[in-house]
């Protein structure tokens, strides 16, 4: 036979809770009830944090900010599948991931107010600073995975990036090498349909981003990124596989960025109101609440209590962030090298007067 089929690709998509709040019985039994309260409370907290960040920006109390509205399930569902000792490598839109990992909100606010100390990761967490260059962090995750493998640790790496980053060479190089070295990395593509003004359809002729894993020799899966249970389940499976030595996984969280790219952008110039409205009806909290209500895990009183608690936490974080004294001018010299050069010492002396 001159032509024979030598490979076949299967692209899977996972949904656990549909838009009407109905759950797949076989899948839902795999997750403990307590996790849904954790989902709800973390998403509520992240959403309030986000809302306040946008208000503070408009009031001139915070710099340019990248909203997470609409993507909370993709961020929080995935982050909660990791342990605090695992490595988290975020892009700039991962405030929800950091909040889910227990990163102090006061530091996040401080970061967006323009303060390097906001990215000084507290003890007990392994979170690299938010990567602003698009996609560069993909290769860092492979290196961190390599370090874990060398040391024989039972840890996994989460690396977050958008659909835009999937067009970069770093995506190909990072995934390819993670596959070659069989490293414990979970590639979490936050496909929010828009790379600033470039739609997903213009990003690649491939039908999904998940299917690209096939060519790197490991598993890729698309999940309903507005279904927090599906994101959690797929990520947890990938984390367990990574820690058991099974190598990397690519998870495409199919979601939507409901807000502008950042506060410096105006998305109404490039996408229709109808499109945005359709996705608003699919946002993650609606179905989660419906599902939890059916299970007896949600009530109005419970929600009020969660909002009150989250709101107090956000207020306190803003207060603390704004009360922080500005950094010492000498810090900019102090932290540039592990030990200062002679020139840096002289400049430091000048700054210290």
């Amino acid at each position, binding site marked *: 036979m001159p032509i024979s089929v030598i490979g076949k690709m299967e692209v899977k998509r996972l949904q656990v809770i549909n838009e009407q709040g109905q759950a797949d019985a076989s899948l839902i039994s795999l997750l403990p009830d307590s996790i849904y309260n954790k989902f709800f409370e973390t998403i509520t907290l992240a959403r309030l944090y986000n809302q306040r960040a946008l208000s503070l920006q408009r009031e001139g109390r915070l710099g340019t900010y990248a909203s997470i509205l609409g993507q909370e399930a993709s961020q929080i569902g995935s982050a909660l599948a990791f342990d605090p000792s695992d490595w988290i490598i975020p892009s700039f839109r991962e405030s929800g991931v950091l909040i889910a990992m227990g990163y102090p909100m006061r530091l996040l606010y401080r970061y967006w107010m323009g303060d390097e100390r906001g990215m000084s990761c507290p003890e007990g967490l392994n979170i690299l600073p938010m990567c602003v260059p698009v996609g560069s962090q993909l290769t860092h995750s492979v290196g*961190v995975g390599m370090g874990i493998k060398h040391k024989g640790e039972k840890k996994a790496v989460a690396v977050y990036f958008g659909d835009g980053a999937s067009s970069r060479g770093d995506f190909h190089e990072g995934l390819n090498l993670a596959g070659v070295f069989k490293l414990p990395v979970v590639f979490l593509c936050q496909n929010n349909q828009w790379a600033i003004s470039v739609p997903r359809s213009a990003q690649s002729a491939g039908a999904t981003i998940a299917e690209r894993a096939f060519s790197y020799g490991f598993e890729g899966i698309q999940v309903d990124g507005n279904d927090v249970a599906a994101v959690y389940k797929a990520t947890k499976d990938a984390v367990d596989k990574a820690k058991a030595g099974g190598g990397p996984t690519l998870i495409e969280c199919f979601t939507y960025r409901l807000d502008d790219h950042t506060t410096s952008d105006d998305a109404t110039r490039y996408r229709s109101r109808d499109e945005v409205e359709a996705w608003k009806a699919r946002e993650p909290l609606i179905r989660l609440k419906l599902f939890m209500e059916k299970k007896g895990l949600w009530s109005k009183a419970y929600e009020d209590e969660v909002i009150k608690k989250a709101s107090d936490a956000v207020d306190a974080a803003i207060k603390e962030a704004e009360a922080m004294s500005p950094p010492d001018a000498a810090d900019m010299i102090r932290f540039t090298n592990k030990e200062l050069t002679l020139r840096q010492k002289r400049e430091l002396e000048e700054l210290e007067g």
Partner: protein
Amino acid sequence: MPWTKIYGNKADFEKAGGAGAGLRGLTYREALHEAASQLLESDQNVFVMGEGVDDGGGVFGSTLNLHKRFGSDRVMDTPLAENALTGIAIGAAASGMRPILVHMRIDFMPLTMDQIINHAAKWSYMFGGAVSVPLTIRSIIGRGWGSAAQHSQSLQSLFANIPGLKVVMPSTPYDAKGLLRASVYDGNPVMFIEHRWLYEHMGHVPIEPYTVPIGKSITRRNGKDVTIAAVSQMVFEAMQAAELLAADGIDCEVIDLRTIRPLDSDAVIESVTKTGALIVADTGWASCGIGAELAARLVERAHGALKAPLKRINFADCPTPASPALEKAYYPDRHTIAAAVRETFELKRSNG
């Protein structure tokens, strides 16, 4: 010190007395190999990666057969993906490893600039000093291999511009071994730039591990008339020039900068205060280069020290040629340096 001496090859080394008296000679290539070997032996966090580190050439012999001794997961051959490999090495360094990444030609490094400049150089600062990137990137410059514009460049000044990086350029086997170890334990990202023409040079190298301090120059020759500050292979050319000039009664002081970021300008300024004349011999282009920086610092800190105009020995301001005829015209050597020194010396004398 015997190991501060420079020998262009094994024959010269042996003519000068060679080994003996408890001393041992190694080539630059062997010194690099021994440094890597000792690091891999004593520190499980050290690993070597790069395209071809385990092949029959072994990066011009400098990593030859190390994979057989330490395993291919510690001396790792990699697919060609320069930016990714650099990012991976940064990630590994941030998680506690001490990688030595090898790029066989510095000309491949422009592909890695995002990772080196936007990430490796910045993380200590961005993390408030909490995380460092103890990464060593070996790369090789050269001349005369006919590979021209995209394979024979000397790009050290690009890196020397960036806060957070260090840039070392060893010129002797002793320094190659000691600076490689110092780079691996420096705690900052270090660009370790070797010169292919130095690989056969031979010198005394102690067998035990040692470090050479990063940021310290060394005076290779004391003299009173003209200071020549040089790096890498140009140090050897400067020493040869000094010999030629000594026959004419011109006494040169030769300073091997060894590191160009941080740059030991204090030593150069001190020397020029004594000699009143400075020639800077670099392996690369002049604009915004090592000579420009040294000249600026000299003027800032000791503007009256010069008794004759400063001269810079560099590549011509054009890409590196392929043709042997053009290469001959392009690359400065001991004669270029000697001519510059003579001219400077005359001007200094006529200026009284």
